């Protein structure tokens, strides 16, 4: 589904296969340049992107469920959030691990930057860093703006 979606949206941009760059030769596994480009676009397509097992409505793993619950508690607006179900695409499941250099699912990206997996998400949620990050990246409105709606906008 994932790759099909990309074909649909990005097919005009697909380029002919080229020789891999030199760094490719020392990669431990082999993710294609095309897959890498697609994943770069995917993580930058929406402010908050989660690669997970299952869907937000029906997570298929406790770690993915925890990640979804945390993002819900943080109040990440649906229009700024997108999830990819790695169980629907075995290629994506292996590619994303190499792309992020991260061995487990779920994986969270904010504004195209890898944040971490479930453990990191949970600890950042508990110590307030996640809220701070989401505010800084413009995913959530800053607290001051909510607390003082009457103050002049900056």
């Amino acid at each position: 589904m994932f790759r099909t979606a990309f074909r649909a949206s990005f097919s005009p941009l697909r380029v002919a296969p080229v020789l891999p760059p030199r760094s490719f030769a020392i990669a431990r596994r082999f993710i294609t340049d095309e897959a890498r480009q697609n994943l770069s676009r995917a993580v930058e397509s929406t402010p908050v992107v989660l690669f997970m097992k299952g869907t937000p409505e029906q997570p298929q793993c406790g770690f993915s469920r925890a990640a979804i619950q945390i993002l819900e508690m943080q109040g990440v607006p649906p229009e700024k959030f997108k999830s990819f179900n790695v169980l629907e695409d075995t290629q994506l499941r292996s590619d994303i691990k190499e792309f992020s250099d991260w061995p487990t699912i779920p994986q969270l990206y904010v504004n195209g930057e890898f944040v971490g997996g479930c453990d990191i998400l949970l600890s950042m949620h508990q110590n307030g860093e996640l809220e701070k990050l989401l505010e800084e990246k413009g995913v959530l409105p800053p607290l001051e703006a909510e607390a003082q709606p009457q103050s002049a906008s900056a």
Partner: protein
Amino acid sequence: MIATAELESAIRTAIPVQHLEIIDQSNGCGENYAVLVVSEAFEGKTTLARHRYINELLRDQIALMHAFSQKSLTPKQYQEYLAKNAGAA
């Protein structure tokens, strides 16, 4: 099946470890582990960097697991963690 001892030696040979807990959460199949590592080597490193470091150390083993969870704390953070948990209990 991955042995607890294998994970332990991989971590201990790489960094000085003040405290280490390796919990087999798999009910016997040996494919689901949670580790708590306390090391001064984590001082000044971000959580993401610490996790990446441990992931790299255990790369081959994690690849064979269903689930892997970690906490990577400095000795100071571990004291805070203990104090917090004692308070909560």
